[in-house]
Each structure stands twice: as C-alpha cells, then as structure tokens.
C-alpha cells in the first residue's frame, strides 16, 4: 500500500479525532493522542502489513486514548473515587447525577480496568466493531474478545451498582 499521508489524514483523520475525543472528552489531550497515533503509524517499520487501515487506526487510537486517560487519572489527584461517590448522588433528595457525570464516571472506571478489557469493551460496545475485527487487531481469538468484553461489562456494572444504585430515568 502506498502511504500518502495527506490522503490518509484526510480520509482517517476525523475517525481518529472522534475516537480520541469520545474516550478522552478533552480537546488538548485528544490533539496529543491524534498526533501520537499518526506518529506511531508513521514510525512503524512494518506498516505495509496493515490490511485494514481504518480498523487499525480505530484500535490504535482507542488503545492510546485509554493509556492517556489512565495517565490523566493518575495525574489528576483531585479526582478520586470518594469524590465521584459524593458527586453521583445529591444527599438532599437522592436524585442522580446527570448523564454527563455518569459518562465521566464510566471513563474513570474504564481507565481502572486492565488494558485489554478496556480496549475490547470500548471497541465492541461504543465503536460497534465486530468481535472478528477486534480479534484481528488485538491478535487474540474471537472467543477471547467475548470473554474480555464480558469481564469488562461485569466490572463496570458492579461499579455502577455501587455508585448508582438507582439508574436515572
């Protein structure tokens, strides 16, 4: 495959950007992730072996964005679980925090999952990739993708049960 970078940027740039933004929800971090992903592909010695550039970029962006999310969670010492627990429900009337807060909690919990589980969950549940696509990118068996997604969902569900015993309507 001929790697015309301007063509690749024009074709897949928005895809990389959207995935990075969805995971990170932070423009400066997403810009860093966008550039890191393209740099990594540019410096990859065996990039001619990539069959599906779009799927590869989607997986790589998810992976790097989750790494960045994890770094950000570590860096941001102000955001800890107790803060989230106090943020999720207002003590006065027991009403739930709004959906945006829940999305941020989901991101936080995602960054706490083992990397393969987080990647598989995100690609299947949010990016709507098929198990076969994810298995090909992660270089694992198709069934193993199912196991990773199931474990991730189970853990996230348990965390949500603890943090948000009543889901918002």
């Amino acid at each position, binding site marked *: 495959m001929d790697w015309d*970078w*301007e063509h690749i*940027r024009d074709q897949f*740039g*928005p895809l990389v*950007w*959207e995935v990075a*933004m*969805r995971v990170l929800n932070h*423009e*400066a971090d997403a*810009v*860093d992730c*966008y*550039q*890191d992903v*393209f*740099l990594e*592909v*540019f*410096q990859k010695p065996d990039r001619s072996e990539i069959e599906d550039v779009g799927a590869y970029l989607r997986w790589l962006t998810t992976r790097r964005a989750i790494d960045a999310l994890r770094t950000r969670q570590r860096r941001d010492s102000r955001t800890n679980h107790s803060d989230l627990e106090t943020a999720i429900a207002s003590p006065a009337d027991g009403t739930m925090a709004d*959906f945006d807060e*829940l*999305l941020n909690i*989901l991101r936080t919990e995602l960054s706490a999952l083992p990397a393969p589980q987080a990647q598989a969950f995100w690609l299947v*549940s*949010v*990016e*709507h990739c098929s198990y076969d696509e994810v298995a090909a990118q992660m270089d694992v068996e198709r069934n193993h993708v199912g196991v990773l997604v199931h474990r991730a*969902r189970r853990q*996230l*569900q348990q965390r*949500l*049960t603890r943090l*948000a*015993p009543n*889901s*918002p309507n």
Partner: protein
Amino acid sequence: MNNSSQDERGDIEQYDLLDQLTQRLREQSVPPLPEDCQHWVPKSAVETQPQSKKKRIHLRWLAAAAAIVIGMVSWSWSRSPKEVIVDKTPVTNETMQAVSTGRTKHLDEIRRGLDELDREITELKRQAALLDAQRKAEAMMNRMATLGSSTRSIVDES
C-alpha cells in the same frame, strides 16, 4: 428468593444503564477536528515532538523560569535594608569620651533601678509575712473563742 430476584433486577437495570451510557458515548457530538490538525502530517513532526506538547513544555519552562526570577527578586528585596543612615561624623576623643560618659550614666541609672526593685521586693516580703502572721493570729483567736464558748456551755450544764 426475594433478594436474589431483586439482585437480578438490579443487574438488569445496571446493564441497561451501561448500554444507555455506551450509546450516549457513541452518539455524543464531537467538536470538529482543530484547524492545525487538519493540515498536520507526521512527516513534518517526526524528528520533533508534537507541536502542542512542545508548546506546552516551552510554556512550563517559561513559567518555571519566571517563578524563579520573581522569587529571587522578592527575596533580595526582602533582604535589602530599607533605609541606611550613614553618620559621617569623624570619631574624635571627645566623641569617645561623651559615649563613655553616656554609657556610664545609663549603667548607673540601671543599677539604681535594680536597687530600688530589690528594696520593694524586700518590703513586699515583709508585708506578706505580716499578713500571714495576722491571718494565723486571727485563726488562733477564733479557735480560742470556740473553745471558750464550748467550755462555758459545759460548765453551765454541770
């Protein structure tokens, strides 16, 4: 049984919530790709760091340097004497004599003050001893009066 069915219902609700959240993440609107990313190609940045990172690092260095400079300036400002009075009067024998006389005079005054203080302390001690003696005498008189009245009542009864 009841608990387990409640747990199952809770699980289903949380699964529903998780699905709703992932769906929201999928559908959430994303701001457009920034202008500098639209024209950015990795070829131009391969030997350097990504531009935004580089800028951020430069800014951090600049902020650190500015903080150091401000700290040093404020420290030196706080250390510098605010007003320096230089007495350029030449030191003569008369001046030395005057200083010496003045110092002796002050020392004498202090000594006198201390002597006076000693005297006052002695007087206070004496007064305290008197007060103590007076209190003791009063207490003894009270006891004697009590004894006298009780003796009188015994005598009267007998």
